[in-house]
């Protein structure tokens, strides 16, 4: 068992008791030493100052850190929003790029097909033009041959007619001047020679076909 006894403060020195009739004691009051309880130790002062400083520093520090924290959190939120936006842009750009690449591949295939088709059409057109040129040459050849044949027929007709007329004249030669008959015979020979020339031209036309 521990007994607890009340503590009694013992005065540091006896309190003087004065009667009303007793004059107060003479002597200088200044010589009386100051009460020992009012004297503050320097250590206490230093500690108190340090405490105050620590409190001030703490308050300043806490305030600064809170403000800095707020700033960093706000900045972090803005960066996060920015990153999200950039990510969305990147995703959209990648999707657009993939679509463009697909479109480009399709367009490239279409271009290749179109080029091949253009080449085919150019070839078809050229070959049709070849056939047309050949046909024109055949037509021209046939026209040349026909014209040459017509010339031969015309010349032969005139030759035959001339010869028939010459025979008729010779049957009644006494009725005509011999010089006229000779001249007419020469004319018939010329006409028949033309028929021979026309026939030669026809043969040449046929050979060049």
């Amino acid at each position: 068992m521990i007994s607890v006894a009340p503590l009694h403060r013992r005065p540091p020195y006896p309190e003087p008791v004065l009667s009303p009739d007793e004059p107060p004691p003479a002597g200088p009051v200044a010589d009386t030493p100051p009460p020992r309880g009012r004297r503050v130790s320097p250590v206490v002062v230093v500690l108190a100052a340090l405490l105050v400083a620590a409190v001030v520093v703490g308050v300043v520090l806490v305030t600064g850190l809170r403000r800095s924290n707020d700033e960093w959190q706000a900045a972090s939120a803005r960066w996060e929003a920015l990153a999200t936006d950039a990510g969305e842009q990147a995703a959209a750009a990648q999707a657009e790029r993939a679509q463009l690449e697909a479109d480009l591949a399709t367009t490239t295939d279409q271009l290749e097909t179109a080029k091949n088709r253009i080449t085919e059409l150019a070839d078809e057109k050229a070959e049709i033009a070849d056939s047309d040129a050949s046909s024109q040459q055949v037509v021209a050849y046939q026209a040349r041959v026909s014209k040459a044949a017509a010339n031969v027929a015309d010349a032969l007709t005139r030759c035959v007619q001339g010869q028939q007329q010459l025979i008729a004249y010779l049957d009644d030669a006494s009725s005509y001047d011999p010089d006229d008959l000779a001249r007419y015979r020469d004319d018939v020979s010329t006409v028949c020679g033309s028929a021979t020339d026309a026939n030669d031209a026809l043969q040449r036309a046929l050979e060049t076909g």
Partner: protein
Amino acid sequence: MRLRAGVAALALVGPLAACGIVPDDPAAVPTSVVPPVPAATTAAGLSPDGFDAEHRIALRLRSVTCDGIATGSGFAIDEHTLVTARHVVDDATSVQVSTYDGHDVLTTTATIARDADLAVVTTVDALPVGATLAGSDPAVGDPVTVVGYPLGKALDVTTGHVTAGRDDPLRENAAPVLVTDAPVEAGSSGSPVLDDDGHVAGVVYAKGQDDTTYFVPVSTLRSMLDDEDAFVPTPGCS
């Protein structure tokens, strides 16, 4: 007194030191982190219709003679001039030209070289694009490309290498000719032989045995083009 001054200094320095502990404010957040996108550009020399230059310079010739028609190949050297082989046009009464995309080109005159199987035809209409002549003849082993209309059919591209240089066995060319293994057919005469840079290195004029192809080197073509007397009008058919 010294102690109090120290305490006062500590009271002043303490908050300042505390401020030093607090991190700096974050840097300003930009409004965008996307770098500037460069402006889209168009590649230089891009074909307007997807056909490359080697197709665009090739020309198809139809030579109308007294005996019929013949087809050959050629290539433009400027807007109104094309080069082909002499035997393609020497008997022609008219020369008809069409381009890779089927356009017909009206021609005016055709002249043939005296000493080489080469001919020059001028046109009324503009040709698609002119070829660039190579600065020198290709060497044996160099890769070459032949663009033309074999058998008068569709435009065709064949490749090979220069295999030899020799005198002309047909005696159509006074100067030596070159040989390549790039295959050709009748109708390819006049086709340009292109080097690796796409420049004209020669002109096809004959097909040999074993798929060999004979062509007039570009040096001969250059010398002919530089000589005004080298070409004479076509005699046509008689």
